[in-house]
């Protein structure tokens, strides 16, 4: 996947300690997209970076839960600001 390659390249080049993925514009998360998000978390962890997914729509959150997806290994936050707080160690 292009996104995963780009992410790994960026993490290696910059030494970033955190990754924020904003899914505000994402209308559904099925198990395919869920797996992709989990893999991004796993890749980031190999570079010692934490992943926070932000901006999940309420309907998506309800559907994800019923689908049975837990997005293990990634944190979630309400919005980018809250996500940054997590990465900066404020919460």
């Amino acid at each position, binding site marked *: 996947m292009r996104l995963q390659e780009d992410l790994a390249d960026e993490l290696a080049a910059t030494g970033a300690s955190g990754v924020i993925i904003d899914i505000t514009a994402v*209308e*559904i998360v*099925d*198990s*395919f997209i869920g797996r992709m998000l989990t893999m991004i978390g796993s890749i980031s962890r190999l570079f010692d970076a934490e992943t926070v997914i932000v901006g999940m729509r309420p309907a*998506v959150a309800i*559907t994800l839960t019923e*689908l*049975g*997806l837990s997005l293990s290994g990634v944190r979630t936050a309400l919005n980018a600001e809250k996500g940054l707080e997590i990465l900066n160690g404020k919460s």
Partner: protein
Amino acid sequence: MDELPIQSGDDVVRVRQQVRGAAAENGLSLVDQTKLVTAASELARNTLVHGGGGVARIEVVKSPNGRTGVKLHFTDEGPGIADVDLALTDGWTSGTGLGLGLSGARRLVDEFELNSKPGKGTSVVVVKWSR
């Protein structure tokens, strides 16, 4: 009744868009639209990956008590499912996924019917009713 081919990832996206349109036009709430589109995405991807491609049909249906529903048919002529009960078990996977596609899709809809014969293909029909 619209019939849509499922032969590529782009076709899966088109099925999602058409299902969203039908769900929104027929009075499903935003949460129910999202559940139905997510189920459609899982089932369309199954048709593509496990069924070797197939077709989706979208139908608007009425219940005896006057509620409107969106009914989706996914049909393929792939290898079929040898053990349907096992395939519907949470966490059971044929290898590539998380094992939530079929069982998860069933939880997201109001009616779910799966027919499969090994060597003959698989058909899944689901309905989501407006509240």
